[in-house]
């Protein structure tokens, strides 16, 4: 089970990659992106003062492998897949 987010490797998104690393995620380049991954079942990113509002709310624009438990103006809580809610979500989609 892997939880990962992809951050476009451009200057304005570097703070998001740093936050993910601070939250214990492992960073490696994948094409145009930085992949931030974790083997933990969940990761919580806390917004810092330096991250402007528009950027924070676009933090996942590169893509996410996992599920958003919550995404508030201060906190981004991601959980890995598969989990019970993932099964639930699949059932809902059918």
């Amino acid at each position, binding site marked *: 089970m892997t939880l990962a987010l992809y951050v476009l490797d*451009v200057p304005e998104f570097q703070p998001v990659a740093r936050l993910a690393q601070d939250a214990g995620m492992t960073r490696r380049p994948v094409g145009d992106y930085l992949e931030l991954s974790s083997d933990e079942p969940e990761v919580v990113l806390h917004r810092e003062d330096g991250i402007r509002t528009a950027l924070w709310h676009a933090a996942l624009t590169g893509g*996410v492998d996992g*599920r958003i438990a919550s995404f508030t103006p201060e906190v981004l809580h991601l959980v890995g897949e598969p989990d019970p809610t993932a099964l639930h979500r699949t059932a809902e989609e059918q």
Partner: protein
Amino acid sequence: MTTAPPSLSLDGVDHLAFVTWDPRATYEFYTQVLGMPLVHAITATGWVTEDYPDFVHFFFDMGRGNRIAFFYYFGLAEEEPPGDLMHRSRHLAFHVDTEEELAAWRVRLKAHGVRVTTPLAHELIESIYFDDPNGIQLEITRPIREMSGIDARDAELTLRSLIDVAESPRPTAQALWQRKAELIRKNAEVQGS
């Protein structure tokens, strides 16, 4: 003998057209506040369709040869303004090069009594927002950095993800981001193989 078809590309904006019910305020705002010369106006009876009203169509120069145009229709009842989301979404953004110019425009707008936002930094641009007298949202924006190839490649993946997800029963931002992660990994596998 056959000849290759010429490659086609459009060359920027000739004009954008809107409707006004207040020609005085529109004329004063675009010429005096935004400093755009009035460059053309035509007046005609309504010939386009049977019920087309008589009209004036007038054009201001936005710079770089691009024009903004307005129709004034005689006898046309004024439309209800759009809701807040559509008002914000359907807007026109003018370009300036520098942070100093953006700040100077904000001062100028305020000096003319225009309500204008504080500068808002997005990802690649920083903008101020205000309304014209017709309730059209306008923006002046300056680049924080220039767009490059990496931005276009990322946009292609985002739109591929959006199109996939938008055609599903319940599109969500999360589903788009999950689909995009899949595409990024697939691309990486193809390039790594």
